[in-house]
């Protein structure tokens, strides 16, 4: 059943092609829409990354990819998506200091875990910078758009700390307990994905706060990426499908704003 592993990537490629076609139409609607331009750029980067990964796996199966171009494309997509949010943040004066600091610490902890798992210092640190750029602006955007309540912010912080703690524990306990921690991490990440999907859908249904729609769709994407980087096997594939869904939701939220 080797072919089934390609299914999430193939689904994502189809979603990306649909989104690129729609986003190009969005640019034609408003040629000077900076958000749409950076968004298309990010999506093209993700598409190239997926095609590269697919070609690599078909041409060189069973060989671990060293420092490769698809990682550069992922960095480009994070930076471009960060630029989409940055161009939407009007007043930088919004007090999101705590959230910004927390996002940087969370990314640093993630980078430490990635390095411990893979031993690939350079690419993990660079990925951390790019993802950190996206999360930094996402925090400001979430705060500015008032997308999350105080309780939700607190829950998010506790969940993030729990994730890092559970993943760290896997290095210090025996194999059977480590796999239990892995399962717990996977379940937490999956629950987070379900929560963000519900939150985005509810915000779409309400339709009163366009900025919150964008914020939450981008938050779902960031969460799915974090989940992909933290998990393996079935949890990874599920997170990739959620990531494809989040890409479509980001597109729809931006399209709704552009077309009023």
């Amino acid at each position, binding site marked *: 059943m080797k072919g089934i592993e390609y299914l999430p990537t193939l689904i994502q490629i189809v979603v990306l092609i649909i989104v690129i076609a729609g986003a190009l139409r969005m640019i034609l609607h408003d040629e*000077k829409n*900076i958000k749409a*331009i*950076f968004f298309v*750029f*990010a999506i*093209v*980067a993700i598409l*190239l*990354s997926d*095609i*590269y990964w697919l*070609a*690599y796996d*078909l*041409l*060189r199966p069973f060989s671990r990819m*060293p*420092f*490769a*171009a*698809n990682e*550069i*494309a992922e*960095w*480009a997509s994070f*930076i*471009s998506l*960060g*630029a989409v949010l*940055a*161009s939407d943040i009007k007043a930088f004066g919004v007090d999101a200091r705590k959230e910004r600091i927390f996002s940087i610490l969370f990314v640093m902890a993630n980078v430490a875990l990635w390095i411990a798992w893979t031993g690939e210092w350079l690419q993990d640190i660079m990925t951390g910078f790019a993802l950190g750029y996206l999360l930094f602006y996402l925090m400001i955007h979430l705060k500015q758009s008032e997308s999350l309540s105080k309780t939700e912010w607190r829950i998010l912080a506790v969940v993030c700390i729990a994730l890092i703690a559970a993943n760290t524990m896997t290095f210090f306990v025996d194999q059977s307990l480590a796999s239990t921690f892995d399962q717990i991490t996977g379940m937490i990440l999956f629950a987070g994905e379900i929560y963000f999907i519900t939150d985005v859908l509810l915000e779409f249904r309400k339709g009163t706060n366009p900025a919150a729609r964008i914020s939450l769709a981008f938050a779902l994407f960031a969460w799915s990426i974090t989940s992909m980087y933290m998990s393996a096997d079935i949890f990874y594939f599920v997170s990739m499908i959620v990531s494809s869904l989040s890409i479509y939701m980001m597109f729809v939220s931006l399209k709704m704003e552009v077309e009023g």
Partner: protein
Amino acid sequence: MIYAENILLCIAIPLVVSLLFIHADVRKYVAAFVLGMGMCLLAAYISGFLNLATGMTNNDSSVFLSPVVEELMKLLPMMLFIVLLNPNDSTFTMLAVAIGAGFSTFENCCYILTSGAESLPYILIRGLAVGVMHIVSILALSIWFVGAKRLKVFSLPAIAGGVSIAMVFHALYNLLVSKPGISSYIGFVMPPVVAGLLYILYRRLSKQSVSQD
């Protein structure tokens, strides 16, 4: 083993001397062409060093390291032009194409001297695929830069995003042609097809630019 520096000197000297007797855009084109050849040599040095430092095979190096190094080396003179000369859109695109053409010409020269030029079909593939690929990647990057400047979004994310897409395109080509068979045919066809698409886009942008002026 070939002496790449000597080959560069041999090709570049007549071109540099010709700069004294030519003017305007032709002079800029030839200068950028020579610069492109120089960047190719520098990229070969850096790739060679990284190849030894990482212990990768030549094939792995061409798939993983060369696209990153070569696209970065082509980006450097482009950034230099933007910062120092601030050329207009059409001149900038012309300079970018000249860098790409110089880069691929020098790479082809070295390749032919190493591997021979007996097989005409192989030489045609080399010229149409690799040669065109370097022009395509840098042309796409220059069109993106021109667009970003026009929309006033020429910033670090725009530069990083643009160059990384050029790198992935280049890496995808190198990956596809690294194995014989269908994948290599797809790889060989990719640059001319994209060149055709970029030609259409370039014509459209040029017309827009003229109508704006």
